C-alpha cells in the first residue's frame, strides 16, 4: 500500500504532549515540513523556549538547544555567529518573548541578526496555568486577572510586530494565525519566507502566529 500522508522527516517519532486543540502542533508540523522542503534539516539548529513548547527539543528532528526563559535570541546570536552556515530558528511563546525576553528580541531585531524567530502568541501563560501575559487583551480573563484585564491596573498588551517595526534593523516581520485552514496556509507561506530570508542572508525574520490555548 502506498503511503500518501505521514509524519514529515523534520519531526521526530516522539509523541507530542500538547493539549488537544493547541496550535503548537500545527506550527510544529509546518516547520517540520519546511525543514525537509527547503532541504535545511541537516544544517538547522533550533532553540526551544521555556513554556509549553520547552519539549520542542524532543520534537524537531534536528540539533536543538534549550536555553533560559526568554534568552532564545541571544543564544541564537551566539550559534549563528559561530556557525554562519547553519540555519538557526528560535521558537518562543508570548511569555518567553514578550515578557521576560523583551530585551533580547528587541536587540536581536535591532542588530538584524540573520535568524528566524517563530513567535507563538496565544495571549496567555500556558505552561504555568493561564496567567496574564503581556499580550493578554483588555477584558480577557486569566488566573491573575480573574475579572478580565483591567488596563488601569495591568496596562495595555504589547503588540510585538508593531513594536519591532519601529526599528530600522529587522528585515521581515509578519503576523498570521492558525485558527482556519486559510490562515494555516498563510502561516506556511510566512514561515517559508522567514526561513528563505535566512538562507539568502537577508537578516532578521519574525513570524508572529496567533494561536489557541483551549486549556487556559
Amino acid at each position, binding site marked *: 500500500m502506498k503511503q500518501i500522508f505521514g509524519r514529515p522527516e523534520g519531526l521526530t517519532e516522539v509523541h507530542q504532549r500538547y493539549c488537544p486543540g493547541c496550535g503548537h502542533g500545527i506550527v510544529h508540523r509546518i516547520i517540520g515540513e519546511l525543514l525537509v522542503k527547503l532541504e535545511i534539516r541537516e544544517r538547522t539548529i533550533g532553540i526551544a523556549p521555556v513554556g509549553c513548547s520547552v519539549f520542542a527539543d524532543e520534537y524537531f528532528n534536528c540539533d536543538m538547544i*534549550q536555553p533560559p526563559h526568554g534568552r532564545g535570541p541571544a543564544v541564537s546570536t551566539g550559534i549563528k555567529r559561530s556557525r554562519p552556515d547553519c540555519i538557526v530558528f528560535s521558537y518562543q511563546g508570548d511569555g518567553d518573548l514578550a515578557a521576560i525576553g523583551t530585551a533580547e528580541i*528587541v536587540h536581536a531585531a535591532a542588530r538584524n541578526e540573520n535568524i528566524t524567530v517563530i513567535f507563538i502568541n496565544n495571549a496567555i501563560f500556558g505552561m504555568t496555568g493561564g496567567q496574564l501575559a503581556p499580550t493578554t487583551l483588555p477584558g480577557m480573563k486569566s488566573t491573575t486577572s480573574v475579572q478580565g484585564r483591567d488596563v488601569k491596573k495591568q496596562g495595555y498588551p504589547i503588540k510585538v510586530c508593531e513594536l519591532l517595526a519601529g526599528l530600522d534593523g529587522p528585515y521581515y516581520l509578519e503576523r498570521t494565525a492558525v485558527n482556519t485552514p486559510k490562515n494555516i496556509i498563510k502561516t506556511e507561506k510566512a514561515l517559508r519566507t522567514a526561513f528563505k530570508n535566512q538562507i539568502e542572508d537577508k537578516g532578521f525574520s519574525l513570524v508572529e502566529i496567533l494561536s489557541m490555548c483551549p486549556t487556559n
Partner: protein
Amino acid sequence: MANKKLMYGNHAIVEGVLSAGCRFFAGYPITPQNEIPEYMSIRMNEIGGTFVQTESEIAAINMLFGAAAAGKRAMTSSSSPGISLMQEGISYIAGADIPVLVVNVIRGGPGLGNIAPAQSDYYQATRGGGHGDYFTITLAPNSAQELYEFPKLAFELAEKYRNPALILADGLLGQMMEAVEYTIAPVDPNDLPEPPYALSGCKGRERRVVRSYDLKPGRLEAWNFERQKKYAQITKQEQRSESTDCANADLIIVAYGTCARVCSAAVRMAREKGLRVGLFRPITLWPFPKDMLAELSAKTDDFLVVEMNLGQMIDDVRLATDCRKKIHFHGRPGGGVPTPPEIFEKIKQILGGA
C-alpha cells in the same frame, strides 16, 4: 626577550584568550574591566573573530551558551554586578555540561558598591553562584603574566571536564601594567577538534540536544550524581597552589590574587626581622587546594587569612585544617586594599615579636 611587552592586566587577558584560540567574545561595559571589551573589539576585528557588545550581561552569557554549545571556545568578562546578572545563564551552562570562560574583574560591593579592587565575590565564585547543585572551576591569577596564561588553562580545564570556568581578577590586577612574556604558542581555532556535544547540524549523524532539564522522575537525580563524580575528580586532580617559605614557618599567610602580592611583601619584611612567616597562595579557588594546605598544617599552628572582604576564603582554610588550627583574619571589604606594613603589624601581633 623579544616576546616581552609592558601591558595592562586587562589587555593581557585579551592576548591570553586569543592565544588560546578563542574567537568569540560577548560582553557589556562595566568598570573596572572596560579595557577588555575595548581591546578585544580591536583585536577580534584584526584576526577575524566575533565581538558582540550586548544589551546586557544576561544576553552576553547566553550568547556564550550558544557559541559554546556550537562547539566553539567562547568567553565574556564583566565585574561583580554584571556577574550576578549572569548567574542564571552560568547555572544553565553548568547544567548542560558546556565549557565557557567567564572573567570577573571584581569591584567593591554589595550592590553598585564602587569600582575599587575587591575579593568579595569569593563565595559566589566557589559555591556555584546561581541556583542548583554545581561548581565552577575558578582560577585566581596574581600578575599580568598569569592573566595572560590562565585563559588557555581555563579553557583546557573547562573542556576536559565540560564545565564553566571562571577567572577571578580585581580592579587592581586589571588596571596595573606589568611585563608579560608571550609564552603561549597561539592555538589555531581550526585545529581544535569538534566536541562530541557540538551543535553543528545533524548531517551524517544522530541529532544532538543541549539542555539542562529532565522532567522524567529520577533521571535528573542520576544526572546530578554523575556531575558529583566529575566534581570529585576535579577536586582530586586540579588543586593548584604556590607555597613560599612555608617549611618550618611559625605562621603561614593564606592569600590569593592581589592580596597575595601584598602579603609577599609583608612576608619579606617579617623575614628581614627574623620572623618565620610563609605564604600559601591558592591558585585554584575551586577546587580549593586543601590537600597541600592540610599538609602544611601538620607543622604549623598559626594561619593568617588575608582577603579583600569580610572573610570568605577563611571558611575553606578552616575546613582544610579541620578547625584544629588557630586561624587569624585580616580583611578589607568595600574596595579597601591592605598594605604590606598593615599586614606586617598583624604578623607582629600574632607572633608577638620584633
